[in-house]
């Protein structure tokens, strides 16, 4: 009898773990909370945070005239410290011209091609990361304020579906680790909750700055799935869902992660 009850309880516990679902708001934690003391100190000190090197370079690019029209970002947007405040906290945002959400990197490149008449910057290029970091830095300390309007809903749903879809040779869904098993270990590393609070991030493993899409592609390779190309709609939808999932959490950009 006792063993039967035990088995039933065990089965119930397993079932509960399998359908753990979304993390309750009160239990959400940034990747920062899972890191050691040294890396936290590195992120907190602007003169020790290597991401600030890109922010600094982005500041220089912000005022540099470029393109056929000879315009700098600052010529339209003025001082980034005021005009770009909160911008990273509400991206991906809906772009009416494209009829779909665009990420911060895509927004910057759209500005370059449409307004500055300059060639788009390559994904993960120094310049694009620097400009993104500079813009994202202006939202540090602000809560993620993603309020998807009606036209965003299908893209948000697509992102949510991608997050819960088993993929790759390992047949794993993002949610299996990041919703159900966060806080546990994957090899020697703690599994975080996958909240994109600090992008672009300086990752010690990369010895450089990287975008959220680089991180997502990284994860896809990890589960042995074919990663989507940079800028692919699937990745932007996933970004959108992740930002919505982290709504209200505080932006830390540029964050440092192991």
């Amino acid at each position: 009898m006792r063993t039967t009850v035990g088995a039933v309880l065990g089965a119930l516990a397993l079932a509960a773990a399998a359908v753990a679902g979304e993390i309750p708001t009160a239990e959400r934690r940034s990747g920062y909370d899972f890191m050691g003391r040294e890396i936290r100190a590195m992120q907190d000190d602007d003169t020790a945070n290597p991401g600030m090197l890109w922010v600094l370079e982005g500041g220089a690019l912000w005022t540099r005239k470029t393109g056929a029209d000879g315009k700098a970002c600052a010529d339209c947007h003025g001082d980034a410290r005021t005009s770009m405040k909160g911008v990273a906290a509400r991206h991906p945002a809906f772009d009416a011209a494209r009829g779909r959400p665009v990420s911060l990197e895509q927004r910057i490149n759209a500005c370059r091609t449409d307004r500055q008449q300059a060639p788009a910057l390559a994904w993960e290029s120094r310049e694009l990361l620097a400009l993104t970091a500079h813009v994202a830095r202006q939202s540090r300390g602000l809560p993620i304020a993603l309020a998807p309007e009606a036209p965003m809903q299908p893209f948000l749903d697509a992102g949510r579906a991608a997050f819960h879809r088993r993929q790759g040779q390992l047949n794993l869904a993002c949610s299996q680790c990041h919703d159900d098993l966060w806080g546990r270990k994957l090899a020697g590393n703690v599994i975080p909750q996958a909240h994109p609070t600090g992008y672009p991030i300086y990752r010690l493993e990369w010895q450089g700055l990287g975008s959220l899409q680089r991180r997502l592609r990284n994860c896809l390779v990890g589960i042995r799935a074919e990663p989507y190309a940079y800028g692919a709609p699937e990745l932007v939808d996933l970004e959108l869902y992740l930002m919505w999932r982290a709504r209200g959490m505080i932006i830390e950009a540029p964050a440092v992660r192991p």
Partner: protein
Amino acid sequence: MASALINVPERARRGEIIEIKTLIAHPMETGYRRSQVGARIPRDIIRLFVCTYNGTEVFRAELHPAIAANPFIVFSTVATDSGTLVFQWTGDNGFAVRESAAIVVE
């Protein structure tokens, strides 16, 4: 890109031990890696970092392959006089960066 972040206290008491933090953008390519087509990626590292305080050398570090990209160097010195701290990084391919910071000692 050659940008550096330096953190030196603006003011200090005479005789106080001050902490100085420096961070510089550099790829620190070891010279041991190969590209996807098998060609050796040439070494590109910072080899020497020197800090002088009013002309006197107070800190020197030799850097080698296997030091991470964007080297972060923290050291301390004794605040002796008001003046200037000069930081110099030199390395492969003619890499040379010089930055300075002022300090008031009272």
